[in-house]
């Protein structure tokens, strides 16, 4: 029997399950290495060379270089691991989250101050398909 994944029917959301974990193992373990200050320095001084020390796919390395967090997540990254990259760049969780939503940091912050993104219209994949897939 396949693993039941009811969470696949939640739009704009990737649950970090066994499949994602397998896909992103080395991407996430690279992120863990950034918890050491000396590794953050080595990474910043030559990002591509540092990434080549890890058994990551070319797509994963490019997504890191591009700081494309949605792409990193689709390639198996988990937000709490990826946050180490943001921390290395001096970003907050809010700046990282905003970067995934297609709006500016200021617009995202304003949305949160106004009460956040409503669950209405954001519960099922079908609700996003009806209006073209944008949040």
């Amino acid at each position, binding site marked *: 029997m396949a693993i039941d994944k*009811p*969470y696949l029917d*939640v*739009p*704009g*959301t*990737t*649950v*970090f*399950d*066994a499949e994602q*974990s397998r896909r992103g*193992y080395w991407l*996430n*373990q690279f*992120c*863990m290495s*950034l*918890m*050491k*200050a000396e590794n*953050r320095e080595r990474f910043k001084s030559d990002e591509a060379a540092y990434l080549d020390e890890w058994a990551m796919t070319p797509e994963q390395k490019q997504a890191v270089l591009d700081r494309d*967090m*949605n792409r990193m*997540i689709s390639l198996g990254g*988990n*937000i*709490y*691991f990826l*946050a*180490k990259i*943001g*921390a*290395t760049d001096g970003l*907050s*969780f*809010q700046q*990282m*989250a*905003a970067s*995934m*939503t*297609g709006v500016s940091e200021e617009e*995202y912050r304003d*949305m*949160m*101050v106004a*009460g*956040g*993104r*409503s*669950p209405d219209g*954001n*519960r*099922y994949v079908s609700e996003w398909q009806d209006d073209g897939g*944008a*949040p």
Partner: protein
Amino acid sequence: MSARITASVYTSHVPAIGAALDLGKTDEPYWRPLFAGYEDSKAWLADNTPDAIILVYNDHATAFSLEMIPTFAIGTAATFDVADEGWGPRPVPQVIGQPMLASHIAQSVIQQDFDLTIVNEMDVDHGLTVPLSLMCGQPDAWPCPIIPFAVNVVHYPVPSGRRCLNLGQAIRAAVESYDEDLNIQIWGTGGMSHQLQGPRAGLINSDFDQAFLDDLIASPSELADKPHVDYVREAGSEGIELVMWLIARGAMADLAGGRPPTVRHRFYHVPASNTAVGHLILEN
């Protein structure tokens, strides 16, 4: 004479709250209402300082990488260092453990059929230190020993609400079988509604959160049946952290045939960064 659980505390553990404290931003208009909601709680904790706190939280890819992922882990060390999560370690006191009680809880709970992982060495992240900061402010030392109790809510499969509530009951039994007159609190942390990832990031569901607080107080056993997908859909992908509140709730007297708890404090605020902040103090 035995140890007893006198109260449970519930709070979100948003990293930006720790950063606001550490960087002296608590008086800024954005943060003032949030910290105001904890003023009474700080006074309450100062008046009701326990002999130890069992602090239920989740590790955020800090002590546990993908190499191994314990579902439930109890810290039995004498001390726990504050982790460098990538921004450098928070400037907060080292965490002092309670190895004797922690080891007793491990033995008792494992023999009640919960397979805990015993951790003798780990750094603790914002999941553990932010609740302490909210409840204690910025002291030179935390007011009592802490037993870190880490729950995996990052890497699926994560434990069910029912399993968490039952675990809380087992922890209560463990504490009450400890042969020393100790006043123990148990804290459940994380949540409330929030999503940190993907195009749906920023989801907040105040109706869900308020209903969760109501049910946590009055009908925890029914709340324990809520499936994971409801948390993800209604409270955001990181809202799943709320299952940890059921561990603390399960340790309260009413779930062992005693009286319902007294609600000492209830607070709710949106936002702290990406997150809805909820907070409860329940006394036995």
